[in-house]
């Protein structure tokens, strides 16, 4: 297969609280022959706080990164579901509203009219490469893992710009996991919100939402949750810890990034990624003989 070439927006979480997502992304891309050219001096997309408080700011912040991507001229790869959604929305608005594009250009000092494609790695692996062709890279069978696929909000909504095959019942991550030999457990909470943006300010609400997700994942017979969003993962892991708003029933279910499981199935050195989880997946993976 020919090499795939992207410019790459890592996103803040992937260099901080979700370092294992960033490291596993870079490792699987290198192994799959996907070349990543990191946007030079990229900056934060502004996430929820920007669009909730200032519309122009919420387009100008990702607009700066789109301008950097335009200079490189390749399609842009993003792995964080939140960054992905903000980049796609900003590109859509900039290319369809010339007055807005001019305002963003004045604020950013560069041309933000990036016309290349913005891609999510899950979409590239599950749909461009395809799970049949990915088989030749796989070295380990992940049998024993029973996962509920957790898409969250921003990988699927808004459907006009996002990549999944259905907004109410997407199957991209399901197909991806089945392709790795993971048993995918059916559940009705694939795209339910975890309350990410309220994690620090209204922890009581978030605890309620996260608790429901865990209870439902357990009812579905899963032994792990798989996601493509660092906000979901942080929220799900943090709110299982003892704290001000502890659960009445304590959960210890691991939350994994789809890239970590791909790396594990490809036989890459995945141990260091798993060590930085708040809920360690290592006991489960050792029990299933998937790591030493």
């Amino acid at each position, binding site marked *: 297969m020919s090499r795939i070439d992207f410019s790459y927006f890592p996103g*803040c*979480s992937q*260099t*901080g*609280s979700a*370092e294992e997502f960033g490291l596993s992304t870079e490792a699987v891309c290198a192994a799959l022959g996907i070349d990543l050219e990191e946007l030079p*001096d*990229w*900056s*934060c997309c*502004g*996430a*929820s*706080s*920007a*669009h*909730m*408080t*200032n*519309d*122009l*700011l919420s387009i*100008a*912040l990702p607009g*700066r990164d789109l301008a950097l991507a335009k200079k490189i001229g390749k399609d842009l790869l993003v792995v964080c579901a939140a960054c992905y959604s903000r980049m796609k929305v900003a590109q859509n608005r900039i290319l369809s509203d010339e007055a807005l594009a001019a305002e963003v250009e*004045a*604020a*950013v*000092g560069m041309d933000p009219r990036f016309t290349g494609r913005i891609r999510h790695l899950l979409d590239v692996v599950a749909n461009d490469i395809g799970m049949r062709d990915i088989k030749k890279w796989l070295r380990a069978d992940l049998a024993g893992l029973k996962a509920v696929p957790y898409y969250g*909000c921003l990988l699927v*909504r*808004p*459907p006009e710009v996002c990549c999944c095959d259905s*907004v*109410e019942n997407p199957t991209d991550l399901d197909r991806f996991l089945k392709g790795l030999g993971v048993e995918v457990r059916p559940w009705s909470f694939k*795209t*339910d*919100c975890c*309350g*990410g*943006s*309220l994690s*620090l*300010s*209204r*922890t009581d*609400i978030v605890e*309620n*939402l996260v608790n429901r997700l865990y209870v439902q994942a357990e009812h579905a017979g899963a032994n792990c949750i798989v996601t493509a969003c660092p906000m979901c993962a*942080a929220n799900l892991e*943090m709110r299982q*810890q*003892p*704290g*001000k708003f502890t659960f009445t029933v304590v959960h210890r279910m691991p939350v994994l990034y789809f890239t970590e499981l791909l790396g594990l199935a490809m036989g890459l050195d995945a141990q260091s990624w798993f*060590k*930085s*989880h*708040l809920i360690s997946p290592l006991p489960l993976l050792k029990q299933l003989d998937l790591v030493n």
Partner: protein
Amino acid sequence: MINTVNRELEKALEQRTGQKVRDCYQCKKCSAGCPIAFAMDLVPHEVMKMVQYGQERRLMRSSTIWLCASCETCTTRCPNEIDIAAVMDGLRQMALEAGESLGEPEVGMFHKSFLGGIKYTGKTNEPILIGAYKTLSRRLFDDLGLGAVMLARRKIKILPRVVKDRAGMRRIFDRTEGGPK
């Protein structure tokens, strides 16, 4: 007067967000599917009706506009194609611009802390965000045990990541009049 319908708010929101709230016929799908509805003082279909009635003050001071998590479930299910999450964004922005006392002050403090970090470093750094938020909200002792675990698992990095083009970041915030003043 409750029987006075004021169209100004609906028009202002349309100008700001492009959304036609008058198209809402109260099917209530938005409220039925809202994951945060249990915590809201006004559920989404009530917000839409109050926009049609022009009840600006009650909306500006509501908790709901700050509790909406922008999951966009309502937006994708609205039979009249109203982007309800965008309407919530518009209401939040109007409340800030009007200098209203926010229905959920801590959510406002979180956004201020988040954007302040980006304004000065260009990136989101967890220790700066958490430190700024704790200082503003005076909730210094929440989640201390969690913080210790996060440090140990390298979830929180001590050294902040900073963009080189800091002047460029400041210009974006100055030009858009966004973030903390």
